[in-house]
């Protein structure tokens, strides 16, 4: 009996701690969401009420119109989708070459790929912005998309999972006259679906959330991504319009939060692929 009580108390203590910590972690999101769902006057009352009462979509609606968020969301969706598909394709091709083909200087070429992983975007943006300019790609979708179409991380990940496919499978296919592309498409890629899912999700999130490169390559409404659009809702000096940014945040973050909940497993797989198994 006594131990049951102790165990019960311990369990209660642990749950209380979990709930308290979860509340702290979630507080910023909750506060912003609440603010976005209140009407202009209620949003700034004092003392601030943190209860979800008198909710309205007015703020979000005004932010949507003021920020032209529909267009920006479509831009982000389009750019992220194309980059994701592109990264998967280029990673599959290069990963296949490194895993299944033998060619001179293979190790050196692979080392070159790996070493580019060390170069952060922050270093290359200076010149890339000029390159994009010289191609006439400023304020275009190409400018947003093309530089991100190859991912060394993706190549590495795909090579890794392809190396685990038995060599006999390729040999059996070769005896049947299956070419490399067909084997890639019909056998190797389907067998690697979980990894490709993780890579795809990872790439999509990264592109959707990118800030520095888009900020350097586009500044017109036709091509701006949602991340860049948020900044334009920020009007520090005009308190009456201050709440627009909370509406924008909800619009920008919601699709990604839904993705996180739906694809949590793939995301964790993608993130940990670089860490634990190294």
């Amino acid at each position, binding site marked *: 009996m006594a131990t049951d009580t102790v165990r019960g108390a311990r369990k209660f203590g642990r749950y209380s701690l979990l709930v308290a910590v979860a509340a702290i972690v*979630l507080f910023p999101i909750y506060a912003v969401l609440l603010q976005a769902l209140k009407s202009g006057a209620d949003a700034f009352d004092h003392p601030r009420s943190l209860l979800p009462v008198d909710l309205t979509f007015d703020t979000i609606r005004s932010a949507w119109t003021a920020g032209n968020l529909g267009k920006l969301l479509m831009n982000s969706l389009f750019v992220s989708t194309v980059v994701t598909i592109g990264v998967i394709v280029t990673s599959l091709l290069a990963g296949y070459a490194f895993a299944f*083909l033998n060619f001179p200087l293979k190790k050196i070429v692979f080392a070159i790929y790996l070493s580019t992983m*060390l170069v952060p975007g*922050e270093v290359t943006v*200076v010149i890339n912005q*000029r390159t994009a300019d010289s191609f006439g790609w400023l304020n275009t979708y190409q400018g947003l998309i093309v*530089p991100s179409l190859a991912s060394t991380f993706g190549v590495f990940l795909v090579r890794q999972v392809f190396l685990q496919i038995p060599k006999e499978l390729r040999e059996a296919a070769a005896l049947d006259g299956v070419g490399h592309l067909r084997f890639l498409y019909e056998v190797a890629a389907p067998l690697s679906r979980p990894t490709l899912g993780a890579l795809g999700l990872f790439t999509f999130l990264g592109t959707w959330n990118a800030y*520095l490169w888009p900020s350097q390559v586009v500044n017109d409404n036709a091509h701006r991504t949602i991340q860049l659009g948020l900044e334009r809702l920020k009007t520090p000096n005009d308190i009456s319009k201050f709440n627009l940014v909370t509406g924008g945040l909800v619009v920008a973050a919601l699709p*990604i*939060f839904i993705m996180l909940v739906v694809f949590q497993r793939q995301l964790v797989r993608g993130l940990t692929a670089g860490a634990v198994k190294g």
Partner: protein
Amino acid sequence: MKRKLRDLPPALLMLVPSLGLLAVWTIYPLVRAVDYGHKACDISVRNCRDVGWDRYWTVFQSKEFQDALLVSLKLALMTVPVGLVLGIGLAVLADKQLKGIGIFRTVFSSTVATSVAVASLVWFVLLQPQVGVLADLLSGWIPKLKNPGLLNDSSTALPAVALSSIWASLGFTFIIIMAGLQSVPRDLYESAFVDGAGSFRRFTNVTLPMLTPSILFVTVVLTTRALQAYGEIALLTGGGPQDTKATTTIPYLIYGNNSLVHNDIGIKSASAVLLFLLCLTFAAVQFRGFGKRVHYGN
């Protein structure tokens, strides 16, 4: 035809897309930046002249760069240890077989989905001095929240940026450490338990050593992120407050709107290359420092 060469044409075709992209958008700009780093150009960048490799040293020693370097290092120092400890704390808390633990894990991972822009603006809203919720709730304890606002005071602006970064990275840190925890073999805990080790000893003697690969990875990533912080600066402080440069990190020095070097491709390139070397050095030092202590248990 020799077998090695038989694979060459398909291999080339398959490598060309990614190799071409990497060459144009990663390798070329790096080489070019290194080259521009020792050149002085006019605004059109048509007329450049060689000013010697010691330009890198001049840039490194300049007051602007030194100040920005200091800000970047401070930011790393504020975000990495705290972020790491909080992430480990969350992971240990959530590494229990309890009903509904999945919900808590999702909550703790949630900030991984927030972009730099979203996280920064969330904190921008929370920290707003007149109408922000934190000023409203906590200004009794921390008067600066209301006047002038944490982001508007040169002594609190950087810690406020760090707060936003720590929160934004928490989900990532949690996921990596959590995965590390779950790969610790259960029988290790059991044998430690049988040996009579208490929960604190079990944590320091079993959990932490087995976590070293994950901790190393997180440390390197968080440090790199801090050194490369741009979006949060652009959105939260604009490098300021005002003209103080209290939050002007190296990337903001290079890319920021009111940057001094905005139009000088030479200094910009030199700074970017120095930033790259800085990141490399830090990663190398961290790998080395951890090297002997990392247990890749299997």
